[in-house]
């Protein structure tokens, strides 16, 4: 389905402009501050991670206060009228259930930091998000109890499912 590219080329040719430059000159330039404010999703290399740190012990306390109401006292997942939330602490520390299916720890951190708790999104501090990530990674057998998670150590965690990532056919890797 290259018809959009052909359309574009036709447009460029009739307009007499180079195919590589802008044609319509609509849209404004965002400021660096605007971009930085919105650019919060962590990449798999961890180049976009906020400052902060946390440990499993700290995370356990936060989990009990903010997370068990939906995810269950032991992170087993719940099916209550308040909502259904997935299991977060797998019984099988060798399998790929729950967060053990993720390929990168940055995925886990970003989701907690930006999307949790449900209906209270973006209410966790950076430290709290790192602590919760550390807690879940520890309880799922991925890191040691005393390993601090921060912007440097988090992307270095090798998730158990790292090698299972299969890129779609139109990408080379």
């Amino acid at each position: 389905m290259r018809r959009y590219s052909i359309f574009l080329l036709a447009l460029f040719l009739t307009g007499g402009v180079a195919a590589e430059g802008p044609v319509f000159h609509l849209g404004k330039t965002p400021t660096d501050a605007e971009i930085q404010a919105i650019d919060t999703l962590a990449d798999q290399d961890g180049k976009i991670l906020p400052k902060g740190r946390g440990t499993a012990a700290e995370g356990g306390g936060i989990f009990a206060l903010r997370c068990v109401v939906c995810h269950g006292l032991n992170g087993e997942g719940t099916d209550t009228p308040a909502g259904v939330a997935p299991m977060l602490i797998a019984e099988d520390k060798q399998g790929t259930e729950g967060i053990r299916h993720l390929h990168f720890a940055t995925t886990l951190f970003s989701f907690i930091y930006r999307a949790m708790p449900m209906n209270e999104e973006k209410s966790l501090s950076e430290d709290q998000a790192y602590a919760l990530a550390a807690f879940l990674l520890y309880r799922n057998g991925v890191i040691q109890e005393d390993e601090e998670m921060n912007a440097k150590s988090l992307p270095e965690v090798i998730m158990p499912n790292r090698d299972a990532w299969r890129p779609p056919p139109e990408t080379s890797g």
Partner: protein
Amino acid sequence: MTDKNLGSRRRFLKGGAALGLTTAVVPAVRSQESSDGLSRSAYGVRSRYVTSKRIGDGGNNSDFESEYNTLSPIQNQVGIITPSALHFNSSHGASPPDIDPHEHELMIHGLVDRPLKFTMAELQRLPFISRIHFIECSANYPLPKDVTVQHTHGKTSCSEWTGVPLSLILNEAGVRSGAKWIVAEGADRDSHSKSIPLQRALDSCFVAYGQNGGPLRPHQGYPLRLMVPGAGGFSHVKWLRRIKVVDKPYLTPSERFNELHGPKSVITFPSGGQQLLERGYYTISGLAWSGAGRIQSVEVSTDGGRKWQPASINGPVLPVAHTRFSLAWNWNGKETTIMSRCTDDVGQVQPTAVEFARSRGVSVDKVLSREVRRQGHWNLVFPWKIASDGQVQHHYWV
């Protein structure tokens, strides 16, 4: 009689005839408000005899205000266009954000020469395309407790989407070499995001503001969503607010599923929970679709899969869109199982349970297991059993 009385009688009789009444009672036909606060003349409503509706898909989060993920009532649908009000939605059950289109912007940044932010007005000044496409949740699979086809297959709908090719917008920004992916993000509370291969973005994606002739509905992403034809629903990021051009996928939680949905079909009439009240002639009807292209053919079996007949295709056959099929059928009143199977124009055939089990290396009774469902799009041939009393129910392989 005075002129006034005569006039009143005429109005009375006209009103009665228009309403098809045979009694002398004229109901108060005052202009009623629809839920938008507009009169029915300004914004039409359905007949009060039409009650088909979306239902919650159960077991998904709600935000305590009775919003839920919804299933489309495809058992009631005719044609291929899902009425906008009945289009399914899936977003953890959260309410759609209330976005003022005058405030909303789409930002393009990352590996580009010129980061840009577009207002909705600017986007609507750009060249547009219009495409009829289905959207299907990658978790559109049946569960043992399901009854109707709305339960088993209701996380799919089909609309005409209107918007701007992403290749055009990315060219305005100037994609830098080394770019291989984009990450699209929405303005919803949980900032839903998805990585899309750049090649797919350039070849087929567009940012849509139109749905079936009007603006997107809030549940479908008002005022802007990304369209990724053929990919799972979570790729079609709603309430789209930014696209970042990057070199590697960011791997948001749903990144396992990037493959385009394969060929899938289901009979919507007769289907689960319905009942055929007598033997005789029926027009079997259903929908077929494929994320890879057009539907090439549909077959129907009315004897449990022993014999297959070609179904008629009724209506447009469009790439990556629902396609309506039908089959004339004389039901002899005896218990039987009916099912459909489709082939798309790249040669993929919708698998039966046996074929699917063989290809995945599992036993047939595992085709509905959680482990199999987690592997990706579930598109098996789906049988309905019709009992001798005409009751229709699903016919799982156990």
